[in-house]
């Protein structure tokens, strides 16, 4: 079945056993929806570290298809413990992959795997335009929540 290229085992594993799921304390919370299908995610980011720029936790409550659920789980793996800047850079590469429509990217497969780890399993999803938004839902929420958390951190410092 061609679908196997979209529903990789890696994706189904993340879907069945999502990493980091559940809402915990955070510095900012956002709620994003995919209006075409009703997928929803509430996502919180907690910052920490010496400069307050490290993502200590991403917690989330979500409902949606296997692609959106697995994507949130992979996101959790990829960004927790990294700085906001690193996380957003990873998000940009994931976005690049999702917008590739199945075409070759300028990056080598090794480089992609290095950056995205399990996230490269989503390459097959890029061939299904209707599902790309599912894969990006949690990443868009992260971008929004992280920028809010950073802003709060700056306001706290300057206060």
């Amino acid at each position, binding site marked *: *079945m*061609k*679908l196997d290229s*979209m*529903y990789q085992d890696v994706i*189904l594993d993340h879907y069945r056993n999502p990493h980091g799921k559940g809402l915990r304390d955070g510095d900012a919370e956002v709620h994003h929806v995919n209006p*075409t*299908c*009703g*997928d*929803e995610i509430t996502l919180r980011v907690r910052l920490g570290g010496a400069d307050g720029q490290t993502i200590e936790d991403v917690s989330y409550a979500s*409902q*949606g*298809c*296997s*692609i959106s659920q697995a994507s949130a789980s992979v996101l959790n793996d990829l960004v927790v413990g990294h700085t906001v800047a690193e996380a957003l850079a990873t998000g940009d590469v994931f976005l690049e992959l999702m917008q590739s429509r199945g075409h070759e990217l300028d990056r080598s497969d090794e480089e992609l795997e290095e950056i995205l780890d399990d996230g490269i399993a989503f390459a097959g999803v890029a061939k*299904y335009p209707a*599902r790309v938004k*599912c894969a990006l839902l949690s990443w868009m929420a992260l971008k929004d929540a992280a920028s809010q958390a950073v802003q709060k951190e700056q306001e706290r410092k300057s206060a």
Partner: protein
Amino acid sequence: MTSSTGVLPGLLDTDAIRKDFPILDREVNGRKLAFLDSAASSQRPRQVIDAMSQYYERHHANVHRGVHTLAEEATALYEGARDKIAAFINAPREEVIFTKNVSESINLVANLLGTADEPYRVGPDDEIVITEMEHHSNIVPWQLLAQRTGATLKWFRLDDEGHLDLSDIESVITDKAKIVAFSVASNVLGTRPPLEQIIRRAHDVGALTLLDAAQLAPHAPLDVQALGADFVGFTGHKMLGPTGIGILWGRQELLQDLPPFLGGGEMIETVTMEQSTFAPVPYKYEAGTPPIAEAIGLGAAVDYLQSIGMERIAEHEHALTAYALERLKEVEDLRLIGPTTAEERGAVLSFTLGDIHPHDVGQVLDEQGVAVRVGHHCARPVCLRYGIPATTRASFYLYSTPAEVDALVDGLQTVRRFFA
């Protein structure tokens, strides 16, 4: 596919009908297409496609302008389409307004009621009544009207079985109601509510009624005069016609009393730099060059439907729905949303499948050539009512077959195995 006629009583000769629909011959992902998404948009027979290409190849010119031969032919074809549609819904031709789709039909009425004179004008002390069953097209225009005028929006609720709860009809439709707008067939649940009771109550308190017939006009006889409503809207692309064409029917004396909506060519009588007077209905509501080919295409669609017979189509879909309801019972963890018997419902079946998301269901079905709709079907309040994020929806039409129902059931079994 072997003919299923005779297997189920009431079925149409779909072998013959399907020959008229070139697209139904397609393969999708290497499998024979089972198109079970007609409630979103139906397919078109060759007769409709031909009528539109012949118009463009032989007769196109602007309508109601010019005296040359092509202009007259185009006008005759366009107005001929209006006659066909008028006959199809048993209305005088003056009461048939061409719009873009049912959303535009409803928006048109909602806008008129915001600017009309008394007694039609919707103001701050008035009430607008809809139902929880509506698709967004019959919710949002009324929300906008309420926001603009300060009127109160009220609605009938759905009960657990997918029927409208009319037990409090007298407190929902009060003498403050100016307009009662509701679907005569739900696009998610398939529910067909008791029209007469609602229309009678609305008229008792002096309210106008608008019926959204987008999911009825394609599937069953529609006699607007017998219904006794004030406005009826429907859309062409769900009834074998092209996209970009819809209908608003309204009672003539009412349409004459109400103000114009869009201004432009065609809708005027005389124009000076200071002011204008307006054309009689239906032209008062058709500003600018209309969708001519689309109207002609819809006329051809109506011809096609009538050559089969709306009663026969309703019977076919009823038989198929009863068969599908029975067969879907075999699928473990399948929860039907809406009425569970084929009575008082249309050929639209929405369901959930365990906790497998409808997107995943739809994707794996597509891989097997089965096309269904997934999501909230532009009727999110219905999903909220039943505590589900979305559903998978299969819908049938005159060309649908028991074999396609079988393909759906087989496909759902595959979905369950895939995500087990």
